[in-house]
């Protein structure tokens, strides 16, 4: 049979996978030979292989057919063929979840695991533990305990690893095996010791005291296995991090002592642990770095790689500590292994001085074409970091980046291209001097760019930045070329970019209008629609229209808009659709990028899924008491109302609606001997706020978070009362329960727990909205309701601090990157944009001047008078 198969395979002329064209039904048909007596081990083996292959290819087996095949397979236990038996174990493990009644093999496996044949025992244990559920575990407990302390290493290891898997399923049973695991941990076999340590740790990892006791014991007695040592180091460093223990603790001493271990593996693990510790001083780093330095000259490539990779990471945090290794790293630049060389260069780029940049860049460009994309991305990241450090070198870097873009037009994947483009964009944003060169390089890049995402991204950037450059006209050619040459998505993006030029630059407007007319004849609907839309807006020549429809797009959340429109179509009314009823989008928080990881943020996958607020909206809509509140306007970040490690942990999220607020209290019960019922938070407002309704959480068992809600109406008659303090008390019915089973007593008693006060501030009434073009928005709102006042911020010493305070106090979105205060300046203008509850746009311009404290002149514009008053009142 097998021979025939091979022959067929040869005929098909490919030495490739013999299982390529397997049919599930045919294989299951073949599986009937399992029922024949006597058994032919060779054929059965082959069919089992096919079944496992199909399972691993993701082929779906129905329960009935899987069960039938499984039971046929169980008959193979009568054969004594070793290979066949072990294949059976594999099949059992694969089919454990898709077949019914897999426990049928329990006795057979138990027999194998206690039998005389050592080859069977380990695999049998692993298979047995896959098919065992909580109820059956008791039955095999005795065997497991024996197996853990078995003198055959493979058996003991199998039992330990299986126990580790079962900890998740039935912690309490496995916990009883601690003594056996303890005994296994003193085994002479390195793997057994490692696995035993792993099990012991996982049994205790929730109990910090027990973990530290265990660490103490093993660090004193010492271990034989280097794997176990590595594990100990990891546990110790985790514990250090959790307890925020000082670096004088015995744990740190232990890790440091491991630097002198005779196994390289342990030494590296210790060095890496020290290097990754937060707030490590240079003195503590020194021994770790010197160990890594030694590894740099090791003959083993893996060690060199590990060392240079770790040094590369340290270089981000402690460039000075790595400087000592510069000489060794220089040697590695010419390493035959390109991965090592690249890491060495990027590390040097991070640590090196400004003068060495040119030399290193030259070195990299000599072999950049030989390394893989992944490392090219690392190089780009290093360059990006470098640009921030030495802004004056931007021309060298920019040249290098554009060369990389140009040389690899044909090769080089999307990730790599994106890293370069992101890097150039971040350089442009950080460094105004480089804007023109950067844009020129990007223009050149999109001339020949196959990635739609990148092309649209660059076109968007051109539309934003291009019109403000001294000679905007030169970009128009590049943009219009796209309209002629590219795919629909890119053409549409190009049209939008063109419109922005037309709106911003009056002298270009006539030419843009001509181009628009040309775009209106495009073959694609979206492109035509956009062109027609912009054409009509631009022809009006009104600043306000331009601002609203060309520069600053919609600021609503897209899923929210979809839902509202759907709702609108369901209930036909005469009223036009009101955009203000749509929940606003949460502006992605554009964090101040940390100094050394600028491109790192762009590596996160962009999630198009629902935002946090949409999830809340969904949750709240499910509660009948909160029907009719309208769309959710804003959800705040969670506020802690208790200390971190108390009996009950309560966090509050404030949800703002048009005329109401809903407070969501996420409570966690950390006492395993109590069950809380009817949990609610009673609130006492300090102002004219009315608590309308409480929605209690019915049950709050140990460690399962539950939510209760309070509905509060905002004062109608006094719209300026935007801030309020609530004193909160957690009220509940306590029932004592058995910590092990969770079975509660019948009767309980009422109790309460005082929480910290909850503040509602003006920020809770304002949603952040990013206005890409603040000046246009400023004109659009107009000065109908404008007010201006001057304040002195006596307690603030620097401009950065003042800017930070204002942003967090008002909860508005800084625009035009005005949240970054240039160094060595005495004055700054901060632009803030937001939408006030009820849908009124609010814009704040605040001029700051530094002189003996900070003086602040605040100008507020809004479409509603009260809102202006509220903001100024709250600032003052």
């Amino acid at each position: 049979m097998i021979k025939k198969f091979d022959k067929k395979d040869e005929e098909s002329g490919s030495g490739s996978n013999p299982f390529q064209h397997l049919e599930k039904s045919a294989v299951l048909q073949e599986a009937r030979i399992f029922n024949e007596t006597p058994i032919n081990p060779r054929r059965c083996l082959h069919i089992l292989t096919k079944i496992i292959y199909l399972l691993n290819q993701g082929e779906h087996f129905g329960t009935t057919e899987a069960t039938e095949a499984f039971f046929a397979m169980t008959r193979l236990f009568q054969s004594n063929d070793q290979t066949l038996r072990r294949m059976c174990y594999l099949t059992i493990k694969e089919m454990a979840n898709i077949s019914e009644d897999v426990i049928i093999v329990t006795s057979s496996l138990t027999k194998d695991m206690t039998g005389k044949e050592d080859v069977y025992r380990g695999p049998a244990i692993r298979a047995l533990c896959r098919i065992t559920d909580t109820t059956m575990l008791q039955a095999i407990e005795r065997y497991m305990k024996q197996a853990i302390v078995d003198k055959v290493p493979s058996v003991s290891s199998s039992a330990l690893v299986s126990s580790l898997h079962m900890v998740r399923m039935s912690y309490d049973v496995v916990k009883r095996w601690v003594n056996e695991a303890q005994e296994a941990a003193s085994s002479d076999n390195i793997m057994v010791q490692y696995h035993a340590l792993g099990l012991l740790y996982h049994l205790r990892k929730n109990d910090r005291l027990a973990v530290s006791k265990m660490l103490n014991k093993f660090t004193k007695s010492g271990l034989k296995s280097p794997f176990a040592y590595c594990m100990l180091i990891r546990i110790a460093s985790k514990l250090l991090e959790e307890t925020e223990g000082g670096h004088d603790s015995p744990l740190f001493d232990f890790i440091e002592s491991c630097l002198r271990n005779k196994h390289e593996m342990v030494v590296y693990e210790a060095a890496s642990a020290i290097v990754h510790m937060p707030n490590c001083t240079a003195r503590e780093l020194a021994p770790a770095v010197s160990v890594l330095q030694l590894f740099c000259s090791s003959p083993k490539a893996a060690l060199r790689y590990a060392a240079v990779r770790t040094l590369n990471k340290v270089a981000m945090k402690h460039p000075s500590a790595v400087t000592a290794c510069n000489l060794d790293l220089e040697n590695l630049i010419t390493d035959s292994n390109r991965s090592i060389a690249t890491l060495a260069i990027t590390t040097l780029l991070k640590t090196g001085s400004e003068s060495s940049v040119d030399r290193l860049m030259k070195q990299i460009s000599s072999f950049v074409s030989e390394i893989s994309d992944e490392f090219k991305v690392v190089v780009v990241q290093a360059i990006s970091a470098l640009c921030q450090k030495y802004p004056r070198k931007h021309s060298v870097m920019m040249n290098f980046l554009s060369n990389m873009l140009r040389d690899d037009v044909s090769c080089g994947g999307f990730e790599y291209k994106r890293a370069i483009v992101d890097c150039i964009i971040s350089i442009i944003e950080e460094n105004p001097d480089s804007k023109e060169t950067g844009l020129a390089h990007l223009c050149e890049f999109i001339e020949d760019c196959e990635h739609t995402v990148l092309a649209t991204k660059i076109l968007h950037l051109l539309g934003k930045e291009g019109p403000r450059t001294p000679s905007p006209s030169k970009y128009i050619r590049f943009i219009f070329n796209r309209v002629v040459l590219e795919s629909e998505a890119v053409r549409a993006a190009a049209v939008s970019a063109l419109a922005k030029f037309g709106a911003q630059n009056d002298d270009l407007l006539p030419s843009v209008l001509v181009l628009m007319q040309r775009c209106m004849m495009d073959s694609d609907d979206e492109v035509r629609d956009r062109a027609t839309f912009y054409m009509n807006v631009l022809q009006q020549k009104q600043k306000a229209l331009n601002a609203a429809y060309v520069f600053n797009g919609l600021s609503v959340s897209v899923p929210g808009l979809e839902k509202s429109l759907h709702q609108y179509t369901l209930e036909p009314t005469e009223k036009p659709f009101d955009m203000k009823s749509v929940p606003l989008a949460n502006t992605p928080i554009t964090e101040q990028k940390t100094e050394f990881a600028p491109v790192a943020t762009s590596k996160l996958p962009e999630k198009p899924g629902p935002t946090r607020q949409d999830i809340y909206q969904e949750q709240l809509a499910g509660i009948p008491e909160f029907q009719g509140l309208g769309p959710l306007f804003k959800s705040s970040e969670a506020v802690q109302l208790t200390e971190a490690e108390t009996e009950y942990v309560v966090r509050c999220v404030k949800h703002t609606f048009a005329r109401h607020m809903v407070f969501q209290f996420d409570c966690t019960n950390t006492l395993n001997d109590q069950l809380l019922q009817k949990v609610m938070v009673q609130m006492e407002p300090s102002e004219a706020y009315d608590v309308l309704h409480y929605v209690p959480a019915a049950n709050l068992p140990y460690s399962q978070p539950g939510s209760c809600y309070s509905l509060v109406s905002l004062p109608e008659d006094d719209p300026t009362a935007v801030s309020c303090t609530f004193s909160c008390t957690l009220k509940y019915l306590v029932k004592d329960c058995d910590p092990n089973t969770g079975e509660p007593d019948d009767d309980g008693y009422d109790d309460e727990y005082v929480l910290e006060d909850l503040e509602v501030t003006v920020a809770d009434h304002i949603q952040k909205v990013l206005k890409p073009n603040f000046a246009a928005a400023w004109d659009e709102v107009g000065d109908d309701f404008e007010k201006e006042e001057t304040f002195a911020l006596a307690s603030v010493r620097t401009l950065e601090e003042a800017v930070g305070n204002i942003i967090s106090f008002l909860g508005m979105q800084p625009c035009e990157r005005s949240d970054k205060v240039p160094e060595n300046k005495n004055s700054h203008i901060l632009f803030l944009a937001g939408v006030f509850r009820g849908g009124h746009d609010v814009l704040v311009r605040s001029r700051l001047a530094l002189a003996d404290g900070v003086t602040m002149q605040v100008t507020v514009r809004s479409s509603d008078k009260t809102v202006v008053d509220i903001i100024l009142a709250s600032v003052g």
Partner: protein
Amino acid sequence: MGLLDKLTVWLGLKKKEVNVLCLGLDNSGKTTIINQLKPSNQSLFGPLSDDWKHISQTQTQDIVPTIGFNIEKFKSSSLSFTVFDMSGQSRYRNLWEHYYKESHAIIFVIDSGDKLRMVVAKEELDTLLNHQDIRSRRMPVLFFANKSDLRESMSSVKVSQLLCLENIKDKPWHICSSDAVKGDGLQEGVDWLQGTILCVCVCVRTSPQGHLIFGLAVKLTVEVSI
């Protein structure tokens, strides 16, 4: 039969393999019986050969409730038995039927001291005999009225009455009382089983229609023609 017996003895080295199902309620003594039938550390029929080594052939000391099933092998004078020793606990009884098709004989064990559950045993037996894989086949059924050593135990006659064994018309059956702990009565049962299995085969071979009813017969006829 005499001829065939001689033939197999003459072939000697290679004994015919048959699959036997061992069924019955929980705690009736199935695993103990099978354990007794296995050779003790020194086999009656000479030392253990190599291919018997892996499956634990020799008797074990402690018997625990079976979960699922065990496969055991033992030999009689002319046959080699592969026994599927099924678990008797109620939640696993529905798994028996997976193994009906390929077995050649059934050993049904009854706890003769357990009057209370005799009805349950009868019910299980009836379901078994009416199963589509069993009903139409002439399959030998051997009953062990086990635990005869107990003082309150019933005689095999009484047990067969309670189970209405006389109603089984289309299958050869035999009941013998046994004491699995000591091993009394087991050999008698196995001897009957061996004889009947061989006889059934001969009957099939000489049946006028010439139909081969099941696999064993196929093999035996091949063997004979050699």
